[in-house]
């Protein structure tokens, strides 16, 4: 079993109503599969799909990345700091 910590920010946090949650899977999953899971629970996530950015363990990556046990995945809309 692999355990993934999911962090959400900005509008993604508003849509799903949490900032951090742990997910467990029977076998390795990609970030895309994690987003599918999330969309099942919170259908409004689908509205954001085209714009989402992904970081695994605080490094940007793409949604095809396969997650390992203990990974922290952050999913967020385009940044707007400065």
């Amino acid at each position, binding site marked *: 079993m692999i355990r993934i910590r999911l962090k959400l*920010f900005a509008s993604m946090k508003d849509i799903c109503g949490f900032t951090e949650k742990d997910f467990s899977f029977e076998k390795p999953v990609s970030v895309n599969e994690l987003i599918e899971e999330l969309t099942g629970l919170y259908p409004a996530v689908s509205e954001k799909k085209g*714009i989402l950015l992904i970081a695994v363990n*605080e490094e940007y990556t793409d949604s095809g990345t396969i997650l390992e046990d203990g990974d922290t995945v*952050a999913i967020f*809309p*385009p*940044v*707007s*700091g*400065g």
Partner: protein
Amino acid sequence: MKQIITQTETINLDALLAHGESPSDGADLVFIGKVRNHSRGKTVIHIDYEIYDTMALKELNKIADEALAQWDTGRILIVHRFGRVNIGEASIVIAVSSSHRDESYRSSRYIIDEIKKRVPIWKKEFYSDGSEWIGDRN
């Protein structure tokens, strides 16, 4: 020298610039990003900045390192606020010092442009009639 700070407190510009000054640097360039009272036709009351703090610090450090590798600068100082920032207050200060001005201008511009692209910080603008996350409509 490189210093990266994220904070909720108001930025004290004077104290900041005095810190780590070098007598061999002749050109300081200080970029100060402030909260404006208008944004795309709306009147802004204040902005809340949300931050993914650990990753933001990593990205800010990477950006500063990239700038240091490209231009011969003596000091790079970046301060980004998060939480509530009021109109006219600085949300970001970038101070770059070097012997010659060309380095300072190029380095400073690179840093702010990269911050806007990569650093996980998000603005939520508050208006008289509601609020909105910026960047989602891309």
